[in-house]
């Protein structure tokens, strides 16, 4: 937070042409904070603000996750500085504010903090999505996100009111203690459902996912990247905390509900992406499909499932950021968002083409990349639940259909990049890569390949963090 405000202030005094370089300062500072986080040990949970804020393995995992995401998004925004003419220093500051909201979201232990953190993220994104206010598309995306955000906040607050009314407490610990009494109260369950609806808007699962493709299409690319990775992960962090810390027994009872939502989301996202020609919309639909996979991991209601979700998120982070980096560089040149803009990419920049291919392969689930191992863990968790209920087998087949459909459009992007027919707007100039962007690309590539070939570390962290789930 402090960093964000200081950047805002610094921006006042920096001359126009130097503002972009403020980004270096921010990245450096953020990098130091990230390094510092590795000195913290989360094995014994620490509490603050009257047990509202908890710092444990789960929180640390997500905090590091958000910081890595923000670092790469900042690099992306530095390279797109020309388009963010509204004020690049302010853009950095807003990214930092959103990051602060996400860091709080990782540590929620109380409904008030949940609301505050989600609101901080949402409000910041209102501005970030509509940042290119000279373009109608961006304004439209901003308005859509505003309406969606407002709606989700309304659901959240109403649900929290009902929960408070029936239980008298807002803290997750206290709520957990009252579970036995409250589990059958209809009003309480209704309140819980409303809260879940509010969170579901954030993570874009069916039936609250309609806004995603439009907003991704309209927002500036760094914002879309941060939305796809940060905002979604923040929603899941909050969801996991709520479901497994506060109301674990209810989570177990509603297994079929989670299964149904996940299957519908996977199918909607995968099948909806097939006809897309606009790259940002395609990534929007794909992010819906991935949210569905994460929900599938949730639906197993087991530690293995939660660990799988966390690993999947880690792989997703690098893959999606890699894709958005490439997209922002390519689309910036031609100002075209169509898939054909990728044509002849491997002549214009072999590095970008290879990164895109690796990232698409990772998202599709091609082995020896991080994305595959994430999917593998989720599938394994689901298969291990087969004896528990036949619906898991049905969900597995639906997920399989989703995987195949998603392969079609992911490989379609690879096809466009490697042997697509060029359109006149894309000239065959080589794309120049500034050093920070090159660095970001290497980091994403390294992440995908390293965690694919040597998943042990990420698995270890994920399993440590998955300790919040009480069932194996």
């Amino acid at each position, binding site marked *: 937070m402090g960093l964000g405000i200081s950047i805002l202030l610094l921006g006042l005094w920096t001359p126009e042409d130097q503002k972009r370089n403020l980004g270096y300062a921010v990245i450096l500072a953020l990098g130091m904070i990230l390094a510092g986080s590795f000195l913290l040990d989360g094995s014994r949970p620490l509490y603050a603000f009257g047990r509202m804020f908890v710092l444990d393995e789960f929180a640390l995992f997500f905090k590091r996750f958000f910081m890595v995401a923000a670092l790469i998004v900042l690099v992306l925004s530095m390279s797109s500085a020309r388009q963010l003419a509204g004020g690049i220093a302010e853009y950095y500051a807003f990214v930092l504010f959103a990051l602060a909201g996400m860091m709080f979201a990782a540590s929620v232990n109380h409904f008030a903090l949940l609301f505050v953190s989600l609101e901080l993220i949402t409000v910041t994104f209102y501005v970030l999505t509509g940042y290119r206010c000279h373009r109608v598309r961006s304004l439209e995306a901003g308005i859509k996100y505003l309406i969606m955000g407002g709606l989700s906040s309304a659901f959240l607050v109403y649900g929290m009111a009902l929960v408070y009314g029936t239980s008298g407490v807002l803290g997750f610990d206290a709520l957990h203690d009252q579970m036995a009494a409250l589990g059958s109260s209809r009003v309480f369950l209704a309140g819980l459902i409303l809260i879940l609806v509010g969170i579901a808007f954030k993570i874009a699962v069916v039936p609250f996912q309609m806004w995603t493709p439009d907003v991704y299409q309209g927002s500036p690319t760094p914002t879309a990247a941060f939305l796809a990775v940060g905002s979604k992960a923040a929603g899941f962090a909050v969801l996991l905390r709520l479901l497994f810390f506060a109301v674990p027994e209810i989570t177990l009872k509603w297994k079929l509900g989670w299964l149904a939502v996940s299957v519908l989301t996977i199918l909607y996202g995968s099948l909806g992406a097939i006809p897309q020609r606009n790259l940002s919309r395609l990534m929007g639909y794909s992010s819906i499909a991935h949210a569905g996979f994460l929900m599938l991991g949730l639906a197993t209601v087991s530690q293995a499932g939660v660990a799988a979700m966390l690993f999947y998120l880690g792989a997703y982070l690098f893959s999606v950021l890699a894709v958005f980096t490439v997209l922002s560089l390519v689309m910036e040149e031609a100002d075209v968002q169509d898939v054909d803009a990728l044509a002849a990419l491997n002549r214009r920049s072999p590095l970008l083409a290879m990164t895109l291919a690796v990232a698409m392969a990772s998202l599709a689930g091609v*082995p020896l990349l991080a994305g595959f191992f994430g999917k593998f863990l989720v599938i394994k968790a689901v298969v291990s639940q*087969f004896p528990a209920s036949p619906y898991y087998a049905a969900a597995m087949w639906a997920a399989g259909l989703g995987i*195949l459909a998603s392969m079609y459009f992911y490989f379609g992007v*690879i*096809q466009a990049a*490697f042997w697509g027919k060029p359109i006149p707007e894309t000239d065959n100039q080589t794309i120049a890569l500034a050093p920070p962007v090159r660095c970001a690309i290497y980091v994403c590539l390294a992440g995908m390949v390293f965690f694919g070939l040597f*998943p*042990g570390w990420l698995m270890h962290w994920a399993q440590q963090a998955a300790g919040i789930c009480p069932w194996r």
Partner: protein
Amino acid sequence: MSPLTYILGIPLVAAVALLFVPPTQRVTVRALAVLATFITMVFAVKLFLQFHAGAAGFQFEQEWTWVRALDIRYHVGVDGINIGLILMGALVAFAAACVSWDIRDREKEFYILLLLMTGGILGAFASLDLFFFYCFHELALVPTFIMIGVWGRGENKNYATFQIILYLSLGALVSLIGLLMLYLQAGAQSFDLVAIAAHLKQHPLPVAAQRTIFPLLLFGFGILVSLWPFHSWAPLGYSAAPTATAMLHAGVIKKFGLYGLIRIALPLMPQGAQAWVSVLAWLCLGNILYCGLVAMRQGDLNRLLGNASVAHMGFVFLGIASLNLIGLTGAVVVMVAHGLLAALTFGLSGYLYQQTRTLELGALGGLLRPMPFFGAVLVMAMLAGCGVPGFGNFVGETLVFFGAWKPFPLPTILAAWGALIIGAVFMLRAIRTMMHGPLPPAWAGLLDVKSLWRKLPFAVLLAALLGLGCFPGLLTDKIQPSAQEILKNATETAPGIPALRSR
């Protein structure tokens, strides 16, 4: 370091090394790729000769723990079943690298992808861990897609490449679910095959579980091997693919599913196998008869070879379905022989395509006159495909028929008819139309395979086929003890016919 690690590692390391070679250094790129596959081939031959037939367990093993939490290990080893396959894979990979001299555009990417495919499939054959077994095979997926899309032929290569990718992914997904269910049901807490097998000896899988998991593996792997009726991707894909890709795919990668059935499904789920082999025996007739008949009607050489290749897979399925020693040995021999044969025929058709730009049988004719070497090799390859003695295919097919006669007499009769009559019809018809008869003036100036370098890949594959046909004991002596081991569990109710006489 086990030689197996070198065999699968050298192509992968070479692929990474090629990333750093500038694309303008064409000679270096080609030389590196050919050298890498040559060294792999040498190691594979050495391994084959050093292998002790009949020794218990696996040889040349190497084991590294990879993910401790799930007990996934990098565990490679050979026994009689996969030693032949690894040798065949290395030979085909070398031939494929040599044959690709016609790729003039973006050779660097082409050879990187080729080496990735090679490393992947050799790793899959050598792997003794379920996870790596699956992963190494999937390593071939993206290279196939890009190779067919960029360097493929025909107007519908895009359709062909998407079809092949999606179909193979479907098969892979079904088999992944089967493998995961096996892992979870076995209860050994490990993905390592040896560990699972040892655990299952003490606590065999319940029959109901076997009957559920075996068909998943059967159909999952079956789709990967173009089991009828899931075979339509193969002829289209192979005719659209560049030569080297078709050689590797039809020759080597297709055997992965069969190897999976023999290595994983048969020994670990014997009662499941016994319940399903009758279905398999009748389905394989679909391969042999249906695809054979389709091949008879093909006017394009590559489509004909693609359908023929699918038809030959039927013999392997029949051998597996027989569940006895002779049948299973024959199945493995057919796998090795067919790998060499498919690579040889696709390599030859690729050579022809470069010059004539068409593979329509109707447009070709009398080619033995301008191209004697090429013609001779092609005639020998086609005869091998018919099952003529002297080539490895004869050995394998005969063993399969003898083995499958006892449990499935009627399918065996139909399969023999399919092999001899239908196979002969389409192979000999192709020879007559292409090689003999009047020579159209357009093809009078065709160049034969002249230089040693160009002759080498074909010579290597042909020599291997002849060697396997004339001295089959070299391979069957190695296969037999391992096949016996695999069938020990499955043959409680169906005792095997006495062992083959060794020389």
